[in-house]
């Protein structure tokens, strides 16, 4: 099996899969006390319906900025984002977001958390609870409907967040390192759950991550980003068979993909680390020194 085919721009999975999301020449600059920082520079890609795209890069490459731009939470960027041909200028009903931080509502139990978007949409209580139960079951939380987030583990809470977003029936599920805070085993098992859901719903998914294993396990394609400014370095097609499970991580092809992406990322991660160290050193040098005796 070939390790990977790479391209500079994403193309749809097959001719039959229409493009649903287009990010076109995205630029983003932030003003900081040290001057303007370019977070994203000319990032362009598209995502086909039903596709799973992972965006990977070292810390500081603008992944979360990209997540917020596509989700419509950030404005003031250059370029444009279109969903099913419609240019977005804010949060869009077609895009559901799962956040990195714990985002369940602590005052609502599992079923009421999941039913939240249906409640906002004005769905009658009985119907929305019924529909919410379906999504609770889909993420494997049967029996926990009446539990509050404080009674659940971190992984379970993230599944509640995912079920809540899925309940809004988004065309695109946008996830920002949803399992970053979890241990490796839980992360692999939740990856299985995500794969299962994607297959069941034919859900278009866009995952922002810094975890190479997670990206290869889940994605059809991986967009590798450079360290600041965040540019597209490469797009890697993951030609591992579907349906997949976490067992794929022990395969030789999986290891080759991981190695290839790491070789792309290594240079970027090193740059990021050097940058962090030089900034820490710089900050230390500018600290007022104590007077010796």
């Amino acid at each position, binding site marked *: 099996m070939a390790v990977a085919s790479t391209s500079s721009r994403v193309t749809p999975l097959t001719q039959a899969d229409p493009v649903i999301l287009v990010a076109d020449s995205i630029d983003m600059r932030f003003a900081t006390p040290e001057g303007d920082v370019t977070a994203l520079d000319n990032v362009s890609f598209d995502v086909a319906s039903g596709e799973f795209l992972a965006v990977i890069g070292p810390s500081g490459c603008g992944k979360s900025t990209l997540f917020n731009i596509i989700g419509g939470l950030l404005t003031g960027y250059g370029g444009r984002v279109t969903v099913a041909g419609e240019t977005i200028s804010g949060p869009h009903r077609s895009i559901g*977001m799962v956040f990195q931080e714990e*985002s369940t509502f602590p005052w609502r139990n599992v079923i009421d958390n999941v039913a939240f978007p249906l409640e906002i949409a004005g769905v009658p209580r009985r119907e929305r609870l019924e529909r919410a139960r379906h999504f609770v079951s889909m993420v494997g939380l049967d029996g926990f409907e009446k539990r509050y987030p404080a009674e659940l583990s971190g992984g379970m809470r993230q599944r509640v967040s995912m079920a809540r977003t899925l309940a809004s029936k988004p065309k695109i599920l946008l996830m920002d390192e949803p399992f970053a805070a979890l241990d490796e085993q839980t992360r692999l098992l939740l990856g299985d759950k995500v794969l299962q859901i994607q297959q069941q719903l034919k859900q278009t998914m866009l995952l922002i991550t810094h975890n190479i294993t997670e990206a290869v396990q889940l994605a059809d394609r991986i967009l590798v980003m450079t360290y600041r400014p965040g540019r597209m370095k490469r797009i890697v097609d993951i030609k591992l068979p579907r349906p997949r499970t976490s067992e794929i991580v022990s395969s030789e092809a999986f290891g080759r993909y991981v190695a290839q992406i790491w070789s792309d990322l290594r240079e970027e991660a090193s740059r990021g680390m050097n940058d962090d160290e030089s900034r820490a050193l710089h900050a230390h040098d500018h600290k007022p020194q104590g007077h010796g005796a």
Partner: protein
Amino acid sequence: MSTAAFTERRWAPPLVGFGSAVLALVAVEILVRVGLINRFIVPLPSEVAESFARVITEEDILRRFLQTGWECLASGLLLTVFGVLIGVFMHRLPLFRRACETWVAAFASAPLVLAYPLFLVLFGRSALTIIMLAFLSGLPPVILKTLEGLLATRRVLLNVGRSFKLTPTQQFWKILFPSALPTIFVGIRLGLIFALINVVGVEFLINFGGLGHLINELAERYDLPGVYAAICFVILVSVIFFMVTERAERWLKSVG
């Protein structure tokens, strides 16, 4: 039954609480009887227990209890409504918040009760004086805690709301308010404590109204057991209000 099994029982905490109170009273009784505590300052708990019947039958306790309770309720409602509204207003207007937050905090520590002559001039020797003083004394913690609760709402929860395209009104009622609710109720409880202290204190000072007035009368008669019995009724008012706020908080959480 093992200690661990006992601890798990539902009735264990109230039983231990009641037992502790009884033990403390027995200890005070012994200390007073052996003369380690002056009985002209602290009466025997057994005398206080005996005086309950007298206070109830001879001192029109029900009317006084209801009077203090009503004044507390009125000031409690006022400080909840105005405190939360002002807190929300300050949250919505950052300039107003930055301009006034320190003043409100300073107002919280001001001994407002000393201004009672001014209130007597404004509202007369009436329940309104007591209610207004109690309301104003309890207002700052409600404002400050409402503000704190709203400001402490995690950004990610607001972003969830934005991602679901909530309107500003929905964002407030579905996310900001329920998220701030526990802190708001801390403020309301603090406000009620201040209000109750001021209700009883002003009743005592202006010799008008309910339990504070009764405590003043009993103290002037040097009926110390009666004074302590009346104080127990003040505590009862406090307990009732705390139970009500707890219920209200639970109800609001369930509909949030």
